[in-house]
């Protein structure tokens, strides 16, 4: 289950962060997202030869904690997407698929003429779409 997604601007300014848990661990999740940003920077600046293809937007697993797995994605415009999940057995393809759909939703959201670049995304449509994508996470491959 996905517990948190976030969009972070190129100056590490949060553009959108949403957690999907009942418990009040929002603060903890925000902390995880925050920590993951450094990993993204490191990953981009020192690409591992064994890691995902050079300059691919999908950055793969950033780091696992005891309870969570954190995945990252960096667009060509240096916007970071972070995904935090509690699933321990996650298929790579599912995560890629998630980010692809998430990116499409993001592109439509910033195409609203009233959205200001660099400002937080307040669109209701975007929030709804994200929630749909989050809910269907992993469904495609499990049947």
């Amino acid at each position: 289950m996905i517990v948190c997604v976030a969009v972070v601007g190129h100056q590490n300014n949060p553009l959108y962060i949403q957690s999907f848990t009942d418990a009040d661990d929002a603060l903890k999740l925000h902390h995880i997202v925050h920590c993951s940003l450094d990993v993204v920077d490191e990953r981009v600046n020192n690409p591992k030869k064994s890691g995902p293809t050079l300059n691919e937007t999908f950055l793969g697993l950033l780091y696992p904690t005891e309870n969570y797995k954190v995945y990252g994605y960096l667009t060509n415009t240096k916007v970071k997407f972070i995904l935090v999940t509690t699933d321990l057995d996650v298929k790579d393809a599912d995560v890629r698929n998630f980010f692809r759909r998430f990116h499409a939703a993001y592109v439509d959201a910033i195409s609203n003429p009233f959205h200001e670049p660099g400002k937080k995304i307040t669109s209701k449509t975007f929030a709804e779409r994200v929630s749909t994508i989050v809910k269907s996470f992993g469904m495609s491959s499990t049947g």
Partner: protein
Amino acid sequence: MPPVGPRSGDAIFANVERVNAELFTLTYGAIVRQLLTDLEEVEEVNKQLDQMGYNIGIRLIDEFLAKSNVSRCVDFKETAEVIAKVGFKMFLGVTASVTNWDADGTCCSIVLEDNPLVDFVELPDTCQGLYYCNILSGVVRGALEMVSMKTEISWIRDMLRGDDAFELQVKLLKQIPEEYPYKDDE
């Protein structure tokens, strides 16, 4: 008199040189936003969009007539149908329908269920009085004026304001015949 001209714009739409849809939608959005920044007053923006639409309409009519092969626009009812069925398809790629005729045939509604101008758009709370698509009313008004029909156009429904469709009310004020422009004693 046999019906003249095409009844649908599909074939013409397929042949018209088209501009990239996203570019079109985003450019319109950027123009509206720029106008809001410049003019501040939402009412002023509505007026400006209508005026821009009018300027486009008076040009667009000739392209419409040339490509659609419509040879006469004398009857208001027939003209409204052609504009909705052929015109909207040709230039916006969507089909509009004509409904709500009044008894004497001088007032009707053009209903759009799909409108590429508003893809991606969410009106912020500060722009509630904005008729985002007001350019369309200007285009229709300008185009009709060029075929001698003076009209008054207003929005009845607007999806950005939570309605289920876009509805433009078109009211025919008068038809202006062609005058002999030169004085006889000149």
